[in-house]
């Protein structure tokens, strides 16, 4: 009679479970004594085994703690129980408990192997939370098992990712910078080229007319601007009784470079036409001075370019 798995599914047991190294008799049908077959007793043994197994499951973390020997207590309990086991069904439970215990033992042993400090995941988690910028609430119960103490900022994981990225040698993902490139088959392209050629001829015809217009307006604009600047200059002199203006104050527009260049350009017309003069003052800085029209244009000093 090979071992049944008492409804504790998931385990495929084909070999006879009776052999546990103990000095007990085999669990074959030939070796059953009368009182060994007492169903009530057997039920009780099985129930005790199941309790033990459950307690191992429940208290697993506790038993792993290297500080105690609860695991050994469990094994001693199992030994006591096994003394009363006569048949395969109970022995199977014993074997199951043994598998659990050895597994636990292995894990406990692997903890011992580690020289140096052991690693505590809970502490690690706490450190991570701090790193990610956890905002702890004012009142703490002191019980940090609960997750309700504090909240993580929205960029918590970003912060962590940024820091740990440098541990990875990930190949950058390849993406086309300007989107995907659609390759068209050649024939349609030729058609498009032909279409493009037609409009360009028309465009050329239009061009000369436009250019003429631009040139005229360009000249007018210059004259207008020069007059405008002359107006500013005169107004300034009317207000400020003949004191010269620093050249740079006059032409520079602090907000626009192009405007500054235009101002210089137009001012140069004024000077060319003798409507203003430019000279270096006592500090060798250029100034714009007014021309007294009673004097001849010989007074105008051409700027040193």
């Amino acid at each position: 009679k090979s071992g049944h798995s008492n409804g504790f599914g998931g385990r495929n047991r084909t070999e006879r479970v009776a052999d546990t190294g103990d000095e007990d008799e085999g669990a074959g049908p030939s070796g059953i004594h009368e009182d060994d077959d007492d169903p009530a007793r057997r039920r009780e043994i099985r129930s005790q085994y199941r309790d033990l197994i459950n307690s191992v499951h429940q208290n697993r973390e506790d038993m792993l703690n290297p500080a105690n020997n609860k695991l050994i207590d469990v094994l001693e309990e199992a030994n006591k129980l096994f003394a009363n086991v006569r048949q395969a069904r109970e022995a199977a439970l014993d074997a199951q408990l043994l598998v659990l215990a050895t597994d636990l033992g292995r894990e406990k042993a692997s903890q011992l192997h580690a020289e140096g400090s052991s690693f505590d995941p809970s502490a690690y988690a706490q450190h991570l939370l701090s790193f990610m910028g956890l905002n702890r609430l004012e009142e703490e119960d002191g019980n940090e098992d609960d997750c309700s103490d504090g909240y993580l900022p929205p960029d918590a994981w970003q912060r962590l990712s940024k820091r740990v990225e440098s541990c990875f040698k990930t190949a950058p993902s390849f993406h086309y910078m300007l989107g995907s490139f659609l390759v068209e088959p050649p024939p349609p392209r030729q058609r498009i080229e032909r279409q493009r050629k037609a409009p360009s001829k028309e465009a050329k015809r239009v061009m000369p007319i436009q250019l003429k217009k631009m040139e005229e307006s360009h000249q007018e604009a210059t004259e207008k601007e020069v007059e405008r600047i002359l107006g500013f200059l005169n107004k300034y002199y009317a207000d400020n009784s003949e004191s010269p203006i620093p050249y740079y104050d006059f032409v520079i527009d602090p907000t626009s470079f192009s405007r500054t260049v235009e101002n210089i350009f137009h001012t140069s017309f004024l000077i060319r036409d003798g409507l203003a003069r430019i000279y270096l003052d006592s500090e060798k800085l250029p100034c714009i001075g007014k021309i007294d029209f009673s004097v001849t244009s010989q007074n105008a000093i051409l700027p040193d370019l």
Partner: protein
Amino acid sequence: MSQRSAGSGARRSRPGRSQVILDDDEPDVSSQPSSSQVQRARCSFTPQQIEQKVAEVVQFILIKDQKKIPIRRADVVKHVVKEYKGQYPGIIRRAGQTFEQVFGLNLVEIDSKNHVYILVNKLHPLPGEPISMCPGSPKTGLLFVILSLIFMKGGTVKEILVWNTLKKLRVYEGVKHEEFGDVKKLVTDVFVRQKYLEYVRIPHTEPLEHEFRWGARAEQEVSKMKLLQFIGELHNEEPQTWTQQYREAASVESNPR
């Protein structure tokens, strides 16, 4: 040259050159053609054509790597190499050289039995330097937590421990996370397919339990020493405090794969 028909005839389209004898049935690339066949095969393709194929393979792998799912040799042959199958070893070797010299990447075969490749950066990232055009995904942080747990616990960790730790970081197995979505899927499926993690059943457990290990990609990409350094920073300790892990990290540094 005589032509032996093999597998699907559709692959046989060629620009009117002398045919190549292919040794075996179409789907099975594992058997190498004999050297005489290779020589004959080489004669039929010009160096320019081979170069072209190499370039196509490089481009194929670059695009395939976007999702970080490993690339299978079978796919490369089926979609790119095609009738140049006999040249595959040379082509893939030169593609690897191109990756190294032009892109600074390593083409690594992480599974020599099934012939699966990944692309890994050849250069170590400098601190503060942006890793790619896109800013770091938060998933990197999550992955790092899991990988570091596994490493510090000796290389294997029970799934339950991972979830217990993540719980403390406000990431829950059954709950949709703001940034990660379906975390369970991400951790047990996506990361596994990308070969960052291995998700292995523990035999004889009831109810069924799993454990996590580092995947082949993690082994290639992640610097254990840097990982340990960060852990040290967090705990305000020297990395040498964890002697066993330090030893392992140091041995990996001195024996690059």
